[in-house]
């Protein structure tokens, strides 16, 4: 390795660097088969969610009851069977992808934005600001996330917006901690001092000089966070505190299926499988990203 590098002349080296870390990250990522499987599944899920929204009509295809046709076990016409209202489970599972993805992605965006900002601000200013922010985080980390979610959902009522905020808030402290930990070693570096001396504003220093250092762990945490958020959302819906029925949210579908578990077990299998595959895909992606962003850490 070292030998090859020394033979590259200076001009090439410049170009090599400019081709940026992202090309390098992508090259590393591509080499990891399980990460690629994760990516392919996520892309497929997004496409499914978009097309299900366009192709199916919520009122007629998703929630309209057809009681005569209820509990049809999986067959050629209804691949995943029909539920207790005679609704096609396959259609509902496909449509459900959009809920999980929207809730997962938006709630993690909330926690990522709030949490990273808090973490970077805490690390940059230090002292009392840092203390206050991190102690507040400690308090929220101390509450089991599902129970915090339960409390928020019951305070503000069930809706998809509340669900996203509830999950988003639950994971804020985690992002704050990760961002702070990543940024802390940079805080006292001389180039930050230099930027301050030439009069760069605090905000600009944080965005341009400090934040990039926290980018890798934040990206990894965001990807894994989507997986966690989807799990938490389905858990809350399963408890009857997430997206209200009759929306075909996977957790809510599982909750409904419980009543028929003895005779119609297929109702339980498919929505759960959908959750598992989605969560698995994001986890595989996050894992792959971690290895790709920091090959040194790869074990």
């Amino acid at each position, binding site marked *: 390795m070292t030998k090859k590098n020394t033979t590259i002349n200076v001009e090439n080296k410049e170009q090599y660097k400019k081709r940026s870390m992202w090309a390098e990250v992508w090259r590393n990522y591509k080499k990891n088969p399980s990460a690629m499987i994760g990516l392919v599944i996520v892309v497929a899920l997004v496409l499914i969610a978009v097309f299900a929204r366009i192709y199916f009509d919520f009122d007629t295809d998703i929630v309209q009851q057809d009681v005569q046709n209820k509990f049809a076990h999986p067959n050629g016409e209804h691949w995943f069977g029909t539920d207790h209202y005679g609704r096609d489970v396959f259609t509902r599972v496909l449509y459900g992808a959009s809920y999980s993805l929207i809730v997962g992605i938006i709630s993690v965006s909330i926690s990522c934005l709030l949490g990273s900002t808090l973490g970077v601000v805490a690390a940059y200013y230090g002292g009392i600001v840092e203390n206050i922010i991190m102690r507040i985080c400690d308090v929220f980390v101390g509450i089991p996330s599902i129970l915090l979610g339960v409390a928020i959902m019951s305070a503000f009522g069930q809706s998809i917006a509340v669900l996203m905020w509830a999950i988003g808030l639950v994971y804020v402290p985690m992002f704050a901690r990760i961002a702070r930990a990543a940024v802390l070693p940079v805080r006292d570096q001389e180039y930050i001092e230099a930027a301050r001396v030439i009069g760069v504003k605090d905000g600009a220093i944080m965005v341009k000089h400090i934040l990039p250092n926290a980018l890798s762990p934040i990206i990894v945490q965001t990807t894994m966070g989507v997986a966690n958020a989807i799990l938490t959302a389905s858990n809350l819906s399963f408890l009857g505190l997430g997206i209200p029925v009759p929306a075909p949210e996977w957790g809510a579908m*599982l909750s409904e299926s419980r009543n028929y578990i003895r005779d119609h077990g297929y109702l339980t299998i498919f929505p759960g499988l959908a959750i598992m595959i989605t969560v698995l895909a994001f986890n595989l992606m996050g894992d792959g990203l971690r290895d790709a962003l920091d090959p040194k850490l790869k074990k």
Partner: protein
Amino acid sequence: MIRYIVKRILLLIPVILAVSFVVYFLMDLAPGDVVSMLAPQDATPEQIEQLKEELNLNGTLIERYGRYILDLLHGDLGDSYMQKRPVMELFAERFPATFKLALASQVVALLIALPLGITAARRRGTLIDGASMITAMIGVSMPSFWLALLLIILFSSKLGILPSGGDNGFASLIMPAIALGTSQAGSLTRITRSGMLDVLSSDYLRTARAKGVPEKTVIRKHALKNALIPIITIFGSNLGNALGGAVAIETVFSWPGVGRLTTTAVNQRDTILATGCIIMFTLFLNVTLLIVDIAYAFVDPRIKAQYSK
């Protein structure tokens, strides 16, 4: 060491106060007015005021919270609106079942994670390693309540060998513990593996081998005791996850624990019961984390030395 423990316990107090305030405040926002639910249709304003006082609901939020916290310091969490019994009593009644479940799930998690993680680390880069890691990843990604339902389908509906609900002896504990433990096992396996990998490449294992320690002893004695350190660190947060996850699992298995008590309270708008349960849950979690930290010191003499300073 004792000073450290005392300091940690003192630090716990503001956390618990803050947690209780957050939870109290959130549950206070919940829609549905208990007073109008409980008061007779034709109640006079005086009667309503009196009922409010009985339920400790008069005054501003801060006043109410102040009274609540004073009572909490005396171990009184108020009386459940619906069940008309002290919240503390209800919690204490249900808590052992939840604790038993959480602990059993951790045993399951360890039984899966330790062998899997150690084998994966020792066979690093082989097919066995890959398969173990995929298995762990699937475990992490599987919703525990779904696994619970699948277990019921298989062992209760189809095979009829395990009870599908209730808390009646060991057999009824098996499925809830597996359902709850499997998702924990996933993350634990990964931590065991990476901890073990760090240890396996360490110089002191080479020293041990060089003095003729048999390979089995090298792994079981020299490596494992060091690898246990990160495993213990994660144990606390895992137990917290188990307690949180127990909410859904208890619902599935009609397990008479605190999780189900809490969800029932939330659904019935029994806010005082829900608040009390969540606060006690949190208190318990934080005490566990503290105990884990102390246990950590006993495994790692370096940490112990730090604490005693």
